[in-house]
């Protein structure tokens, strides 16, 4: 960058920052992406210039599910040693990454969760030294298109990365493993504990057919969606050798889990204050990326041990003498794991489920029919369906076999939340399953009641 360019970028940054502060002052939310939006608009090259200033470079985290949680764990592992620019509020498009860089001018390392559709552009502009590819599930087809299309774009962007850039890939996902196959600097992770596997692939499983010969894959163990120990019985293509695995997994209800993290540097028992097998994947992914970035095994174990979930992903909010348990659901694979985790902890009697169809949720709501909600129906006495498409969600449960008399449709989120709390006995916990924008709205409602801090305050901390 020459002097003139530096001056120009400096001016642009000042304008963008001022706009973000104005947004906050005006009470229009946190202004988490506004400065980045403005800067990205007036100068699309700003992202690259800002990232180019980071002395330790950048790492990108992308996946259909688990981006925010995984990147959050990596931040916990690395954050005590290195100053990070991290988009921890989950704003994961070009504007959000740009904002994170603006917010941390003295950062040494960029750590960015990246929307799977925005990955190619951000990778091209940032030029990361490591990328983590977590998983690809069917998600918001109206917005992202089909899986093969995303996979092809990821493949192309990996080809454009320098040869010494690390690709950290989930070997248990046949499609992701395939994308990383030709990469020399690849580091692969997965699970190795058939005791916790599913009996069979769920309905919504994707990437079920061999990328070489199209035969259905055989699974020695299927853990989450189509993630597992896979192989093709016809041509012999199989899960690659894994560098990091989780073994001896102990899932402890809705509270926590632990497992043996087996790495080239040795083995450690990991404790995580989050439930669900999908979070084992997130933890192993975070550990792998951190090791590649130079963390020690002790730092990995301690960082994951300290980690607390990102807002709305698995959040307990006290509401008077009751508790609200907020679990984000946004696509079939993620929702299936939430259902599995909930039922393992003793199925809830009352559930508030919120379906919105804003752009960030996906305008096409058909995905709810791909979710295996049925295990929830045992013992469910009351479903409060809410959100912009409350009726659609109610129909999903009605045709799934829930007694129509057990279904209440309360389209407005605030009323639905109150109705759910009313149905919950004192001292009890109300399970709330919102889509993304419904989650933000619910969090705004409980923040206004003084129950939680707004997310942008947490993000700025």
């Amino acid at each position, binding site marked *: 960058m020459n002097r003139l360019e530096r001056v120009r970028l400096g001016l642009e940054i000042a304008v963008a920052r001022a706009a973000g502060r104005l947004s906050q002052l005006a009470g229009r939310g946190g202004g988490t992406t506004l400065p980045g939006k403005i800067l990205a608009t007036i100068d699309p090259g700003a992202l690259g210039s800002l990232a180019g200033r980071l002395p330790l470079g950048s790492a990108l985290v992308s996946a259909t599910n688990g981006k925010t949680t995984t990147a959050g764990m990596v931040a916990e592992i690395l954050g005590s040693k290195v100053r990070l620019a991290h988009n921890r509020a989950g704003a994961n498009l070009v504007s959000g990454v740009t904002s994170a860089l603006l917010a941390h001018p003295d950062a040494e390392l960029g750590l960015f969760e990246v929307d799977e559709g925005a990955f190619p552009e951000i990778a091209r502009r940032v030029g990361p030294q490591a990328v983590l590819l977590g998983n690809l599930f069917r998600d918001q087809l109206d917005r992202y298109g*089909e899986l093969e299309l995303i996979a092809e774009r990821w493949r192309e962007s990996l080809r454009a990365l320098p040869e010494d850039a690390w690709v950290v890939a989930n070997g248990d996902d046949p499609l992701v493993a395939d994308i990383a196959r030709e990469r020399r600097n690849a580091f692969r992770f997965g699970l190795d504990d058939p005791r916790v596997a599913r009996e069979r692939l769920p309905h919504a499983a994707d990437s079920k057919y061999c990328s070489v010969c199209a035969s259905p894959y055989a699974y020695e163990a299927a853990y989450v969606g189509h993630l597992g120990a896979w192989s093709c019985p016809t041509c012999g293509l199989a899960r690659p050798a894994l560098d990091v695995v989780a073994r001896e997994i102990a899932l402890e209800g809705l509270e926590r889990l632990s497992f043996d993290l087996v790495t080239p540097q040795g083995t450690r028992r990991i404790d995580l204050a989050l439930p669900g097998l999908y979070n084992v994947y997130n933890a192993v992914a975070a550990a792998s990326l951190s090791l590649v970035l130079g963390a020690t095994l002790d730092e990995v174990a301690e960082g994951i041990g300290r980690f607390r979930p990102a807002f709305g992903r698995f959040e307990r909010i006290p509401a008077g003498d009751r508790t609200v348990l907020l679990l984000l659901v946004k696509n079939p694979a993620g929702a299936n794991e939430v259902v599995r985790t909930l039922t393992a902890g003793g199925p809830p009697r009352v559930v508030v489920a919120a379906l919105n169809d804003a752009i960030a949720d996906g*305008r096409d709501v*058909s995905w709810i029919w791909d979710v295996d909600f049925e295990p929830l129906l045992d013992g469910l006495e009351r479903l409060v369906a809410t959100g912009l498409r409350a*009726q659609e969600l109610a129909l999903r449960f009605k045709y799934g*076999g829930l007694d*129509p008399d057990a279904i209440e449709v309360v389209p407005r989120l605030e009323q639905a939340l109150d109705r759910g709390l009313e149905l919950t006995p004192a001292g009890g916990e109300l399970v709330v399953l919102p889509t993304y924008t419904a989650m933000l709205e619910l969090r705004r409602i409980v923040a206004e009641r003084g129950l939680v801090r707004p997310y942008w305050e947490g993000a700025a901390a």
Partner: protein
Amino acid sequence: MKGLKVVVGHLYPDYLNIYADRGNIAVLERRAAWRGIGFEHRAIGLGEPVVPGELDLLYVGGGQDREQALVAVDLVEKGEALKEAAAGGTAILAVCGGYQLLGRSYRGRDGEVLPGVGLFPHETVAGERRMIGDVLLECELEPGERRLLAGFENHAGRTVLDPGAEALGRVVAGFGNDGESGFEGCRVGRAVGTYLHGPLLPRNPWFADWLLTQALAHRGEAPGLEPLGDELEAEAQKVSAGRARSRGGRY
């Protein structure tokens, strides 16, 4: 309605299931069960035969491009049996990819033409931009009975019906077959093809009942289906139709 039963053949449920096709099957099954009508679901996979006389209703869903390509050849091999079933009065619902594959041909963006089954009188050509959004149709499947169908479409293919061919409905809002003709879907007797998913049947129960009636008619039964409490379904259709009217059919 003791003793009544329908047999439903579901083609390639492992491959063609992208837009929640199992929701359509669930609606047919429940609405039959609530009226005491038996429901037999038969999955028909790659290489497995379609036995025309045995099936009262055939369902073909949609898949991602790769899955769709994997079943296309097999489906054409089943073509004669499928056409025989349709000629014998089997009801058919084909959605999205299934609708395309049952037409005469599909021309991809590379110019290559894939032959289809030829059950519906249409040809499909892949377009540059996908037609994505909420969609609302007005249908008249029975003379004098105008009904609304509300759904969601997401397709790159432009489907052009032969002159004189019957569409499923007129587009009130959304793109439809090709974004230009003002028509959506195709109907040949008891066979219907459409781009509408969502899935289609939960919020359009009248259409689910029409299909069940056609399936029973294939058995020589015309019982007249008793009405069900469809208030929730009607509300869902209203919301979906509102979406189509306010934001459907724009690139």
